[in-house]
Structure formats: C-alpha cells, structure tokens
C-alpha cells in the first residue's frame, strides 16, 4: 500500500495521539511524545507493526503522542492510512 495523499487522524487530548501521513520516497517515522524518553521505542515498534501489516514501505509518518495506549495508536494510524488511500482513489 502506498501513501499517495496527505492524511491525518487523532487529537491532541491526553491519552490520544495525532497521526500525519505524507507521501515520500522512503519510509520516515518521526515521533514526538510527552513520554518520549520512556516509550519512544515501544511507540515505534507499534507503528512499524501496523505499517508492516498494511505493507507500507514508503511515506512520512509523523506522530505526536500524549501517552496513548497501544490500541489507540493502532486505531489512529489505521484510520489515517485508510484516509490516505480513500482520498487518493477519489
């Protein structure tokens, strides 16, 4: 799957995250988080897992997280991915 259009999902609320997707030639994952020091590696792992499942190999994925749990990360990223495809097909 290819990220062909800019798309976003999520909010800035506590325990949530915002996901921004943009087309790019390589895969770049940028993570900003209020709990970056403790959890950046786990957030990254989750992001990579979801991207892997959808076969995303290129694109810029920017995350700003406020302590979201795994399932929230997964849900927000999947929503953003779906929007990126849907908008590109439209």
């Amino acid at each position: 799957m290819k990220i062909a259009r800019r798309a976003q999902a999520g909010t800035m609320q506590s325990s949530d995250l915002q996901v921004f997707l943009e087309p790019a030639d390589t895969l770049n994952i940028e993570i900003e988080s209020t709990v970056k020091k403790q959890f950046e590696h786990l957030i990254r792992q989750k992001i990579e897992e979801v991207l892997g499942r959808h076969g995303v190999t290129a694109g810029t994925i920017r995350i700003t997280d406020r302590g979201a749990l795994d399932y929230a990360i997964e849900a927000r990223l999947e929503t953003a991915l779906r929007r990126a495809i849907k908008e590109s097909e439209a």
Partner: protein
Amino acid sequence: MVVELISHRDFHRARELVTGGGLLFEENFANLVGIFEEDALVAVGAREGNILKMIAIEPSRQSGALLGELVSELIRLGYEAGNDSFFIFTGPQNAASFQALNFIPLVHHPKTTLLEYGGGLGRYLEAHRSLVREGENGAVVVNCNPFTLGHRYLIEEAARRVDTLYVFVVREDRSSFPFEIRFRLVREGTADLANVTVLESSAYAVSHITFPTYFLKDADSPFDIQMEVDLSLFGRHLAPFFHIRRRFTGTEPYCRTTRLYSEAMKRILPRYGVETVQLERRWEGEEVVSAFRVREALRKEAHETVRRLVPPSTLRFILSDEGKEIRERLSGSDRRRH
C-alpha cells in the same frame, strides 16, 4: 465540540473572550473556532496560515481539556490547508500548557515564548545537514531583492574572514523579486566563491513568524521583541548547527528597520557565542549600493544605472524575457521597501 464561529453574534462573543484574556482581537484569520457550553462561549482560538493565535479560555474552565480540543481542531484545519508545522507566541506563564500538547519551545524571551508544533525546525536542519562544515564559520541573512554588487562585496569580504560562509536567503515571498529568482541570482553571483554556501532561511530567520514587521513599510509594532526573538532563534538553533561564530551585516545609512536589527544583533548574539561584524558598505558614486537603488533605477528604466549596481548575472536576468514581468511591475506602482 469545536465549531467555526461565523455569525456576527459569535464574533462579538469571541472578541469579548479574547480581549478579556488580555489579547488583541485581530480581524485577519483563516479560521476562528470556539467551544460552547450551554450556549456560552467558553473557549476561542484562531489560525492564520501556520500561526495559531487569539487562544482564550474562560478563566474558570482553564484547568480542563478545552485547550487540547481547541488546538487539535485548529491544527486539523491548518494541516488540511497544507501546513506542516505550526507556531504560537504565548506569555511565558502559558508555555507549559502548550508544551504538554507537544509544542516545542524555540525561543524563550522575557515577554513571549515562541513554540512550534510539528517538528519543522528539526526537518529544516536535517534537510541541510549535508551542508554543515567544521570550522569557524560565518553567516549573513539577506533578502537580495535583487542581488547587487553591494551584496557581492559584503559576501566576499565576509567569506574572507571565516572558514565557511552561510548565506541565508530570506524565504518569504513578499518582495518584488520572487524567492526562486532571488535565490538563483545569489547562487549565480557567488558561484566562484569556494567557501560560500547558499541556503534558504525557511520560517527560521527573518520570516513572517520571527520578524513580521520587516515586510511592512512604516511599522512601529512590537519591534524590539520581534527582532530579539528572531535573533535568539538564530543564535540558539541555527548558529550551533552550522558552527557559526560570526554574523556579518553591512552599515545601514537609510533603512531604520535594518539599522535597528543590526543593533539588536550586537545585543543578542553574544549570549550565544556569536560575534556581530559590521562591514562598511560598498559605494558607487555618491551613494551606497543597495537593492532599493536598483529597483528605483528599474522603475525609471535607467538601465545604465542598473548596470553599474549589479553583477552580470543579475543584469542578464533583469534584461531577459523572464525579468520583463518584474521590470514592468516595478515601473508600475510596486514600491515595497525590501
């Protein structure tokens, strides 16, 4: 729920909330949004381009989640409009509330804190990492509207005093010559100088974020604060990344804005270990060479004067078909100062 405020009645209520919070209500914005509770407006905020402003929350409701809700919506709208990174100026006492939302402080000034959301500065620096050279480097920040023999002289003199000279060309497109052209002419006009590197300044030096007044004609807005924020950002983030130890500027006999800016350099940059070096401007006839003079000459279609003030590369562009449009625009009514 966050809604766009569009009716006169909503505007009026927004204005009350904003001014009640000690902020100025400005009419220019792309979105004005608010949150209502039982028909009372309890939170308001606006976006203009990549700037968030006029964010005010009813005092009794400030401890809750309204700020996050409001700012999420402004960012959503701003991202949809094509922006990647967002800026906010806020009182130092409010900076922590924005930091909790993943805004990163770029500059702490006693009167204001500039924060960014979206990591734009990091991306800007990363994109230019391949240009970083070790050594005692220098910098000039120039608009070059257009590139003249005066710029050439300043850059040549500065380059002689440092290992690498970074020439930051103002990215903002508010001058008679568009950014792409200004950038290209600086590149062409300095191509023979081996230790000169030309790059764009993005939002991070003399931009509508850091120094909006620069682009206005008779400005007397919060001048000092803007210049100090702009220079602090340079000193704190750009200078260490590029190993810049000296910033060069020309003596300025005419433009008050530029003169005050040079004075602010001497005040602010030493805090960041950057020395300000002021170089004597190049003269031609009775006056210093300036881009302003070039534009005046173009306005009068005095091409012989232009020829004496600009290098061959700039002249070639001005006389080309591509330059024709700008020439015609200048001989019209375009009289921007920078």
